């Protein structure tokens, strides 16, 4: 028997398989049900803090720290329809695996990303955080609302919507294994959508 191949998801993309997509679609369908809502205040607070921490880190453009919040094999998904849809047959506003997330950060730091030269300044408000149990004990789904005030090119605009975070236990900690950002205007033309949401 050969030893299992160790593949670095920052370098090659082997984990984005049909099963990966199917699991993602299933996890992000019909999950916001009262029966699975977590009542325990301490547990809710734990995930609320994680969502708030992510918002702070992104406002401060601390991208290495941000990537550290995610599992090595992760997805960052901004659907182009309010229903989320099937990313295998529909274009998304953004659909990144680990390597493409790192591409996104790399591009912003080349010094030639004109859409972010100078960088946007953002102030993110996250609220209405609810935590939902899953069939897997090592997984939680978290819903939150967001309003990102973005200052760019002399103006402040608001990007708003709700986020679904899929958290999983990884190396003894809760990490984000998938984030679905649902912009209210995801199916409309958006000016310069080039910040990390």
């Amino acid at each position: 028997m050969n030893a299992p191949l160790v593949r670095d998801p920052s370098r090659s993309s082997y984990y984005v398989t049909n099963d990966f997509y199917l699991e993602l679609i299933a996890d992000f369908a019909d999950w916001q049900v009262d029966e699975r809502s977590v009542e325990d205040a301490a547990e809710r607070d734990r995930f609320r803090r994680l969502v708030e921490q992510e918002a702070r880190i992104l406002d401060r453009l601390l991208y290495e720290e941000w990537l550290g919040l995610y599992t090595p094999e992760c997805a960052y998904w901004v659907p182009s329809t309010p229903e989320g849809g099937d990313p295998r047959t529909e274009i998304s506003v953004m659909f990144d695996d680990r390597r493409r997330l790192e591409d996104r950060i790399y591009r912003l730091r080349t010094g030639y990303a004109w859409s972010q030269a100078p960088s946007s300044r953002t102030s993110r408000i996250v609220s209405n955080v609810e935590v939902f149990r899953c069939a897997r004990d090592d997984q939680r789904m978290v819903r939150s609302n967001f309003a990102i005030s973005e200052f760019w090119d002399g103006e402040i605009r608001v990007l708003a919507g709700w986020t679904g975070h899929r958290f999983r236990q990884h190396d003894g900690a809760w990490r984000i294994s998938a984030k679905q950002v649902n912009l209210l205007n995801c199916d409309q033309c958006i000016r310069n959508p080039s910040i990390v949401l």
Partner: protein
Amino acid sequence: MTLERVKAPQRLQNAPLYDWDELVQEDRVHRLLYTDPAVFDVEMINVFGGTWVYLAHESQIPNPNDFITGKLGLRPLIITRDENGKIRALYNRCTHRGTTLCRWDKGNSRSFQCPYHGWNFLNTGKLRGVPWPDGYASKLVQDDKFNLAQVPRVESYRGFIFGTLNMGAAPLVEHLGPIKKPIDEWLDRNPGGKVIVCEANRLKYKGNWKLAYDNSGDGYHVIYSHRSLIETENRFADEATKKGMSYYQNSPDSLPMYCQYMGNGHHFKDKRPNLEARPGGLWAIESLHPGMEHVQDKLRSRYGARAESMLDLAGSEPVNINVFPNLSLLGNHIQVFQPISFNETDAIWYGTKIEDVDGTLGAEVLTDINALRMRTQEGFPNFGEVDDVTNFEQIQRGLAAAEDEWIYMNRGYGIPDRIHTLEDGTIKGPATDELFMREYIREWKRLMKAEPDIAIEREV
């Protein structure tokens, strides 16, 4: 059907807005083309009313009574397939007071009822009824003028639906002319020679619509405007394994890729000759995308050499097929430019997927290839186009300087033996030349000077 001839406003007929020859010269254009709202108003009549304009793709309205809302210039439209399968472009404007009838992006409906006073129209455009008809001296449903206006000429070319208001325009296939060949090739590389539209990356910028069309064939900007993209997609590559558009990096004009003006404002950038002409030659330069190595290894181990042509179906076809004034086929995208005002434009990058028309791929390969094709298509709008539209906005800002009047498009101009007119009348030159701008703006000027025979149609 009845035709109603529509005269352009008097102001335009009696006194042309400008001397267009002064504003559009051989190698430069005046800033007013981009900054003057009055020029934009004329464009919406003479250009968007005067030539064939892309409206929609047939795959967006596959079934009877399907509709999408769209625009012809600024005219709000409902593009629908009526019960008999006829594709119509109805004005989304109640004949009573002018209210838009339909506010949804898409759907399926046999009729449209005005939300204001309740006038009800069939999707043939015919007025079906109004509330309390006794209050009118005559029966409105018997008077053609209360049927919805519609675009009098709607024609399709291989799934692409175009419309024009100009009764004097040549038939669509004639108007497309030589650009049909690259369109055919773009389609025919897919199974069954067809693609299906599947959502979009939708961008908006604060700038004139022509800034996008000026960019559509521009091989000169790539290495600067898209430097962040090219550096990113090659961050793991060495000289031998460079990806994406990196062929622009060194002496692009000495490469076999070329720019070709195809007449009637259309132009074509063909980068395919840069690639190795073999199955997998396209896939070989594809940059890194989610799921790429998984699908690639799976198909190669399962199908051997045949995998390469499958993977090419997920690759970005290296062409820019630009159909004046608002359509660009590039990579696997159907990009549409939608003017909003003289300084605001929507640029919509519709994605396309393929169908396993002849059953040769099988369900699993189709799923894998389409998923990968979605990811390849998301790359450029995310990492490339955002930088372009930022530059478009900054051009619009720069052009606010009234005294510095000219925009130059003189790259390649006046150099002997650089540009050649071919037997079919098309004009060919190196990839970074601005010849496509000089030629298309000549067509723009012709349209601005012309008096189009504009009409709308109503059912009888």
